């Protein structure tokens, strides 16, 4: 599974689809973030509009991504979290480290 990537105003937008869970979706997220960093992107937005669920393996990749991007001098932010994913990110307190947006224009503008 490869995560679709697009670019808008210098922001790399990743749009994972379906389950961000152990074995497939978590690895796809890791690969997409690694590819974005390798391509020199320092502004990464993960759009969860088409994501259906996330388990602890997906969450582990998300915090690993945060750390990697920060160490590269960049920023990674989250967009359009479905209520179930927002729920588990709140319980695990991962939501506290990320800037989270419901509006793409606002999210993209926040990087500048």
């Amino acid at each position: 599974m490869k995560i679709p990537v697009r670019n808008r105003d210098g922001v790399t937008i990743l749009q994972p689809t379906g389950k961000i869970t152990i074995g497939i979706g978590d690895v796809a997220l890791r690969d997409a973030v690694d590819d974005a960093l390798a391509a020199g992107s320092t502004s990464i937005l993960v759009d969860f509009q088409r994501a259906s669920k996330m388990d602890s393996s997906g969450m582990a990749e998300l915090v690993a991504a945060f750390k990697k991007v920060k160490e590269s001098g960049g920023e990674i932010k989250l967009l359009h979290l479905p209520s179930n994913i927002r729920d588990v990110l709140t319980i695990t307190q991962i939501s506290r480290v990320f800037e989270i947006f419901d509006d793409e224009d606002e999210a993209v503008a926040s990087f500048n």
Partner: protein
Amino acid sequence: MLDSVALTDMAEQVLQIKVAISSRFENIDLVDAVMEAAMRHFGFDEETVERLGLAIREAVANGVRHGNRQEPTKKVELTCDLKQDVMALRITDEGSGFDVDAIPDPLAADNLFNPSGRGILLMRAFMDEVAFDFDNNGGTQVTLKKSLPSPPSDAGSEEDDS
């Protein structure tokens, strides 16, 4: 590969579901699908099905990854018993067990970037009871319990708080 699914209506108000999978990540989705359908049948609302499904998924994933180390010849088995007003699940693997107390608290500030511990946190957040037992002959058994929602016809009883 889904090895077996058994749905047995053993007696009035007693139901048992058994699912056994070989230890591959892709099989976790099958357990998830079976249990989500079962929990809708039991009357849980969609939000609760989502939460309980994730707790079950975490227990099964731990068995596949940490217990059985993805060895396909080893099985993770789930048994769901419905007795009176409680859904009781047992998830077993063939691994060598682990020290529950040694799992770092994922909510501690220093552990935010630690990959482990969140699965057990989610099980405890969503289930009424979570217990870990270790067989002397090898294998971990996770027990998860959740009260069933009150039936709609039973208007006088207390609301389920889940």
